[in-house]
């Protein structure tokens, strides 16, 4: 195993998924958007994932409140809890956790569905019938994620902050009104947007690998399982690495503004 054989599959993936994104964008500008298929995907990604996203981000807010409550109480810093929690959720945890949950719940499902279609020749059948798998399969999923993920993130942010508020008032004895006022006075548009804008990028990091690995399944049904795992691992790593660079980018932009 040398460096070349280790990085080669990664380069193939990078090239293949970039091409897939390029083809989808091309198809989009050719006006080949099938409204019904997009709506179906928005429903699958958005509505159906809402409970999962709400539960995870709600508990993240609650756990953070507890942890900071214990930690900061020692220094008399309990009053900073609303500020810390709302900032971390809105700037980081809301968008990142919503995207990771969507990758786990939706990205994996997309890969196994597309992979099964590949294995049973349904993808070939789309082409043989003179239609385009990009227009029929990839583009609706890319758009579905692009539309639904920001909406889910907005919900995630809200619920995360409310989770913090719940624990803050119940367990830490903070006045809910004070908490609420503090959140509103802390978060400004730049804070909110620097987190929120990320999820538009993350939506591609979920949908494109999911479609890529699905379309490139090899070796029958066993290949579908392998591809599904690859999708979730790749998306989650890409989201976290992408998060670092986007944070850095927005940091530069915020300073510059």
């Amino acid at each position, binding site marked *: 195993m040398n460096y070349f054989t280790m990085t080669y599959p990664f380069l193939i993936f990078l090239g293949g998924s970039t091409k897939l994104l390029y083809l989808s964008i091309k198809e989009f500008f050719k006006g080949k958007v099938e409204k019904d298929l997009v709506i179906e995907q928005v429903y699958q990604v958005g509505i159906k994932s809402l409970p999962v996203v709400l539960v995870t981000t709600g508990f993240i807010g609650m756990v953070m409140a507890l942890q900071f409550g214990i930690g900061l109480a020692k220094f008399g810093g309990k009053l900073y809890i609303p500020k810390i929690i709302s900032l971390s959720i809105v700037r980081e945890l809301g968008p990142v956790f919503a995207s990771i949950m969507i990758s786990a719940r939706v990205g994996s499902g997309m890969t196994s569905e597309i992979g099964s*279609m590949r294995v*049973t*020749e*349904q993808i*070939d*059948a*789309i*082409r*043989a*019938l*003179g*239609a*385009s798998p990009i227009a029929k399969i990839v583009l609706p999923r890319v758009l579905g994620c692009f539309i639904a993920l920001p909406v889910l993130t907005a919900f995630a942010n809200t619920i995360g902050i409310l989770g913090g508020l719940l624990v803050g008032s119940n367990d830490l004895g903070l006045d809910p009104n004070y908490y609420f006022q503090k959140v509103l006075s802390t978060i400004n548009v730049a804070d909110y947007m620097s987190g929120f804008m990320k999820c538009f990028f993350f939506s591609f990091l979920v949908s494109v690998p999911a479609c890529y690995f699905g379309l490139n399944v090899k070796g029958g049904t066993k290949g579908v399982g392998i591809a599904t795992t690859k999708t979730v691992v790749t998306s989650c790593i890409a989201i976290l690495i992408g998060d670092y660079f986007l944070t850095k980018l927005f940091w530069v932009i915020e300073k510059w503004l």
Partner: protein
Amino acid sequence: MALIEIKNFKKSFQGHDVHKDINLSIFSGECLGIIGGSGVGKSVLLKSLIGLIKPDDGQVLFKNQDITKLNEDELVEVRKKIAYVFQNGALFDSLSVYENLAYPLKEHTMMTEQDIYQKIYKTLDEFGVLNAINKYPAELSGGMQKRVGLARSIIMDPEVILYDEPTAGLDPYNTKIIQETIIKLKNKNVTSIFVTHDMPSAFAVCDRIAFLNQGVVAAVSDVKEITNNNDNEISAFAKGLRP
């Protein structure tokens, strides 16, 4: 003049030469059988005829146009004229039988919903699967799936139909229906290429048979010749005397 001409066709996968040098002509209105052992590359060859797979080298001429040079958009016109019948139907399992048949019509025609319904009704009735119209593929037997797949392939009235083992794994009744359909379409002057292992079906529907072996066309001859003269490669394959 040949309708489809395959010239010096080469294809390998991961260093394994599946096709070394295939040369074959298909004439308008005939039914050409393609036989050969499992894994000899019959499906790969058939898929190349509508550009689903690109050969490494060589040409596939359809009406003198080399389709191996066409891109995915340009291939749409070819695919409207040449239909492909997949081995197991390849029905879209998220769509009902009706929606499966409506798929090509909605993609390529401006037909109204009512016209589409009438066409699908008539086609399914012809294939004896009208009772499946609102069912999903998973609810159908293998034989019915193949018949619905065949119905979906021919609903655009293609000039050429490529059959990938349409009778494999079917009971005698379904086999007979498929055979009769192929003969009926052939009588409407549709050109057919029939990939199969099923020698009785090949003898029943084909005009000529090509035998693929070790990456080349090992033999091509008229069905009458093969059945009259038992001493040839294709008869030997049919009798199971050679792989």
